[in-house]
């Protein structure tokens, strides 16, 4: 089980959180202007690295706030996301 360091509540067990996928995916500024391909990219295409990954977590059972971490998907080591934008 992961030990996840919530920026507001401190380290807690993984079961207190909900996973939110890749971080830093901005909603399109002008969705109607996107081509079908660009819309598909926004909706469905995500990085899937074996290594460091910027991802979002939601502290469901705690402060109920979103935050970002960098997690290595091979070693499962987590560190705070320097680009944290939650």
């Amino acid at each position, binding site marked *: 089980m*992961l030990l996840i360091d919530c920026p507001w509540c401190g380290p807690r067990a993984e079961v207190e959180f909900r996973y939110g996928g890749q971080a830093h995916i901005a909603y399109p500024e002008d969705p109607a202007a996107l081509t079908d391909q660009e819309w598909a990219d926004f*909706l469905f*295409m995500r990085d899937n690295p074996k290594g460091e990954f910027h991802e979002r977590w939601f502290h469901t059972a705690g402060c109920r706030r979103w935050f970002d971490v960098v*997690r290595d998907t091979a070693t*499962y080591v987590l560190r705070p996301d320097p680009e944290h934008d939650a």
Partner: protein
Amino acid sequence: MDPTDTARPDRYWRAAEPKPSYEAVVVGGGGHGLATAYELAARHGITDVAVLEKGWLAGGNMARNTTIIRSNYLWDESAAIYEHALKLWEGLEEELGTELQFSQRGVMNLSHDVGDVRASKRRLHANRLNGIDAEWLEPDDIVEICPIVNISPDLRYPVLGATFQRRGGTARHDKVAWGYATGADRLGVDIVEHCEVTGFDLDGGRVHGVETTRGTIHAEKVALVAAGHTSALTDMVGLRLPLQSHPLQALVSVLLEPVIDTVVMSNKVHVYVSQADKGELVMGAGIDPYIGYGQRGSFHVIEHQMAAAVELFPIFAHAKLLRTWGGIVDVSPDASPILGLTPIDGLFLNCGWGTGGFKATPASGAVFAATIARDEPHPLARPYALERFTTGALIDEHGAAAVAH
């Protein structure tokens, strides 16, 4: 022991040295890759084929699945490909000339609330309209087939009924892999283990071969069948895929006398179980929600699945856990596979089977081999093209996938 020393009794397959060139290269020596190579050789006369496996043959998800076979999916596209697989399973022992412990012991999917019952019956009727056997079981029918299911109305999620596919069942996964490998080898296919693809030879929008840890291999047709590691390969050619790789765990109990001779699945309380011929209870549940390449999973997933199992099958409280393991599954946004051509000429893709690839093995190999041989999608593969994520023609099978993700 030298890891490249793959000497083994010749009643199986040769430990092939990679040749500098093949007509086609299959990347991934799991069930789907081996079935693809076998079908290329047996059905399409393409015998100048190598299967490249970075580890040992069928040591990834093929060695780690829960061996369940069924075709009770909701949508027509899924029914077509999974039922094609089931029909091939029914003749596979004869086809490969080997015993696979294929056992049509039936697969039961339990329903635990009114919404569950409605969704299950909808799927049952869809199955029947597609010519797939499907029965509805009331709780009394369930315990007649599987007496150890707890149908007490006092359960947190009482058992209200189940769909039952009698033609569903299990097969011994290792034997399936070995059967395909032996069959492909007999037809001239080179099975090259401990050979990892490290790059691609691309020129003018088409592929000409692969770089590997055992040298450069030329091929005008390169087929990627690497399950959870597919995006690691496509990243090398700049092809972005809608895939996320997650650990999916399974576990077995110690050997017990026979207590269950069917397969029981519950998507709602989330456990599925069958009993191996040797006696282990084979159980699985959900994936870890996050991307992970560690072939292990979170322990709370096991706790959750054990709680569900013991409530549904009180007798399991006496069982002891023998071992757990995890495979890496490649999950697509609609829980359906991606199968077909790519924007790169000569490069073919078979991935995204997520949590349920084993049951599809024979059809996956058959339609993928046809696609590779003819350079156009097999009719059963056509709906599974990568383009569906742009056109929006998704095949949403989260409900029939039976694993929450």
